[in-house]
């Protein structure tokens, strides 16, 4: 059932290390990610999880190590050996990046339809009618009413903005999506709606995802695999239910036992 293509990892991180001057950001992170896999990166603030996400998404250059990515044509390329335009093309088309604060991932003065359509235009689509139709379809998929398509995200609630950001990212059918605390700062009821949506879309589209979160419940709901970070290092990794049901490291045990029962 699985093609050879799927038996090769989509992304490989090898010994990723980042120092900010003498300050350690992230040390020796290595893992493989396959198509359709959702990996959660958990840890407290300062653990290095955001640094890792920035390294993987080429926002910062590693001090050591590399990231290999399998392009759509099957060629495996090292991200920092690519040219800047190649990396930017990747970010605009094959990747998505969902920021914790939707204001960083959206153009706040542009209509919702424009926010989604812009990504399509970046991959060369020019037919206004098509672009608007696809944008409208995506707004529907993230449960934004059609009659809000011409409003700017400024007029949207926090939950709607986050859903719009997701639509903007997914409209180009990326193969990999990075998410930085996607439910952070939202009300619990709004979080649940967003999580359900993310879970469904990621599984339907078979997208690989790397989700940074400090919320173990979010990790359990969204991810198949998990990496626990502390002090810039990955201290424990494995299947999500395995790490959460049978944590081995003292810090992971502390994290798991610190969840308030509902």
């Amino acid at each position, binding site marked *: *059932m699985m093609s050879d293509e799927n038996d090769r990892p989509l992304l490989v991180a090898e010994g990723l290390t980042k120092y900010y001057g003498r300050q350690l950001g992230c040390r020796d992170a290595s893992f493989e990610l*396959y198509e359709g*896999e959702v990996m959660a990166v958990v840890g407290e603030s300062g653990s290095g999880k955001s640094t890792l996400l920035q390294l993987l998404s080429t926002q910062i250059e590693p001090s050591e190590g590399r990231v290999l990515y399998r392009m759509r044509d099957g060629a495996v390329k090292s991200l920092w050996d690519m040219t800047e335009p190649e990396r930017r093309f990747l970010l605009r088309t094959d990747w998505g990046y969902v920021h914790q604060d939707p204001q960083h991932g959206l153009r706040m003065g542009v209509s919702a339809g424009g926010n989604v359509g812009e990504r399509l235009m970046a991959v060369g689509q020019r037919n206004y009618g098509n672009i608007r139709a696809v944008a409208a379809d995506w707004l529907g998929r993230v449960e934004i009413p059609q009659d809000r398509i011409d409003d700017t995200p400024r007029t949207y609630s926090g939950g709607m903005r986050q859903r719009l950001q997701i639509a903007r990212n997914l409209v180009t059918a990326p193969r990999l999506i990075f998410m930085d605390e996607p439910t952070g700062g939202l009300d619990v009821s709004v979080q*649940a*709606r967003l*999580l*359900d949506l993310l*879970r469904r879309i990621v*599984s339907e589209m078979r997208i690989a995802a790397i989700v940074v979160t400090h919320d173990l419940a979010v990790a359990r*709901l969204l991810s*198949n*695999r998990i990496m626990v970070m502390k002090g810039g290092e990955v201290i424990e990794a*494995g*299947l999500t*239910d*395995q790490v959460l*049901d*049978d944590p*081995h*490291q*003292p810090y992971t*045990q*502390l994290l798991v*036992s610190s969840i308030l029962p509902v």
Partner: protein
Amino acid sequence: MPALELKDVAKTFTMHLQGGLKLSVLRDVTFAAEPGQCVVLTGPSGAGKSSILKLIYGNYRCDEGAILVRDGDTTVDLAVAAPRRILAVRRRALGYVTQFLRAVPRVSALDIVAEPLIAEGAAADEAKGRAAAMLKRFNVPERLWSLPPATFSGGEQQRINLARGLLPEHPILLLDEPTASLDARNRAVVVDIVRERKARGAAIVAIVHDEQVRDDIADVAVDVTRFATAA
């Protein structure tokens, strides 16, 4: 050739928050389940029955020994398999049903039941049709199907969980107290389904306290107390 075989499996928990206390719960766990056979684990509460199922499914990591699972033409040792391999084996070969539903916010009962089939690659319409039939079989009223089960009664949630767990036809099925707190009518549904699966060649490992149900489904009883470590 067994569908599932455990060889000298041992499990110890190290509790770092309790000063590194080592809790040895199981050792020398050895048994096998043939296709078409139901192995029932027996022993008092706390003997480690559920831990054995969690070791097989991979929720618990296996410290020692081998957990051999037949996956198509190959045999996989889940004790040492990579996460990706374990996920593939779960999808294709291994079902695990507990009495508790992990409710997902906002997802309807019907979608929760259909989800594993869709994950296996079934078309959404077909999966939902089969999910509906299973919910009907477990006597879940149709008016509940479109609602998220978070607010349902314990018994209703359990039946939805059973429908979800028993719907995919996995060659190996792990059942942890599937009939606890079910009424007689729904207990009979579980017994019927287990018998059907056995007839179609599934290997089943079950924990069942209800003696009648145990007698109805068990081919082999494995007493877990002999695997318990001397505390």
